[in-house]
């Protein structure tokens, strides 16, 4: 059985709602985290991301200036001077399949639909720490491998050529988002 030493991890929480930031801070501190930095909009979060170099980013979607999706896209710049690989957990009230696909395609690592639960948050953090996925770089995508399983029934186009399928057997982001926590 494995546990996470949260006191060895540095978190950046980005949410424009002060109440949600307080809840996240409370949960993370209860898990054992000591370093939790907070930003109330995407622009401040990006600055803090460069300055504090967090291990894990937890971001809301709907925020002023630029939103969580844009923040993820800005972090996932393969040629940036900063770390483009940090896990991003999107915590949001958006709960439609279309939104999850958009988040995935922006390079979000895990998706957690509100209402928040301690278990749901813990499981997402455990997932990104214990089961990191390789990154894929194509001409129009850079982010964690979006393939989480294989299916013999797949009949769509093969979008990757020139190598064996690199697949990790994990639940899809949609299935994980459905977990009640």
């Amino acid at each position, binding site marked *: 059985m494995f546990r996470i030493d949260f006191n060895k991890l540095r978190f950046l929480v980005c949410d424009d709602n002060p*109440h949600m930031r307080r809840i996240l801070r409370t949960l993370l501190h*209860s898990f054992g985290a000591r370093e939790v930095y907070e930003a109330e909009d995407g622009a401040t979060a990006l600055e803090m991301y460069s300055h504090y170099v967090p291990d894990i980013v937890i971001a809301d979607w709907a925020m002023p200036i630029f939103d969580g999706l844009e923040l993820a896209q800005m972090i996932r710049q393969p040629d940036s001077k900063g770390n483009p*690989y940090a896990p991003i957990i999107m915590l949001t009230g958006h*709960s439609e*399949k279309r939104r999850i696909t958009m988040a995935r395609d922006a390079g979000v690592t895990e998706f957690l639909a509100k*209402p928040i639960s301690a278990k749901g948050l813990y499981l997402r953090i455990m997932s990104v720490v214990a089961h990191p996925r390789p990154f894929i770089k194509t001409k129009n995508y850079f982010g964690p491998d979006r393939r989480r399983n294989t299916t013999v029934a797949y009949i769509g186009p093969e979008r990757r050529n020139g*190598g064996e399928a690199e697949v990790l057997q994990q639940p899809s982001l949609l299935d994980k988002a459905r977990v009640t926590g």
Partner: protein
Amino acid sequence: MAKNKAPAQPKVQAFADHHVITPPNTLKHAIRRVIDRELDDPVARAEQALANLSGEFKTWMRSECDRLSAAHTVTLKKGFDTQTRGELFRAAHDIKGDASTFGFPAAGAAAESLCRILEHAPDLDAVPPDLIQHHIDAIQAIVREHNTIEKAGVANELSARLRAVADDYLTVVNRDRPDHLEMISAPSIAPKE
């Protein structure tokens, strides 16, 4: 003097049209093996901390309602533009996401219905003002009269009826926009209460 160790580099595999990059696992130092019977339960500890915080939830919910009401007042004065619509949407969206955590799930459901109107109505200025006003009033009432109407099941009934009226309206005004119709009818993946 010892030299600083160079940071580990990502391992890159190049293929015809993509690269597979395996970054160094910088978080593995935070994982430790524990014995099964270790008593410490971080999730239970966090749930207890959240319960300790719950005394503040009603005050927080009221301030969320005030923010929603203020944003709505601005739209009544200025009309809908990117900024006023954005602020009203974010206020409603925050209630949608937070209300269940704060103990007001019916307010969250009414806020979700309002979010759907703000997101899918093709012309917000053409939305019947009463439709938006009733959502705002319902959310306020559910929070204000929480102890009485929530227990009687009125809050859930109110939210459900608002949602039905809003969905009927959105179905009609989006009849020529199949992509929106599909989104309106798509099921939510949000956890159930």
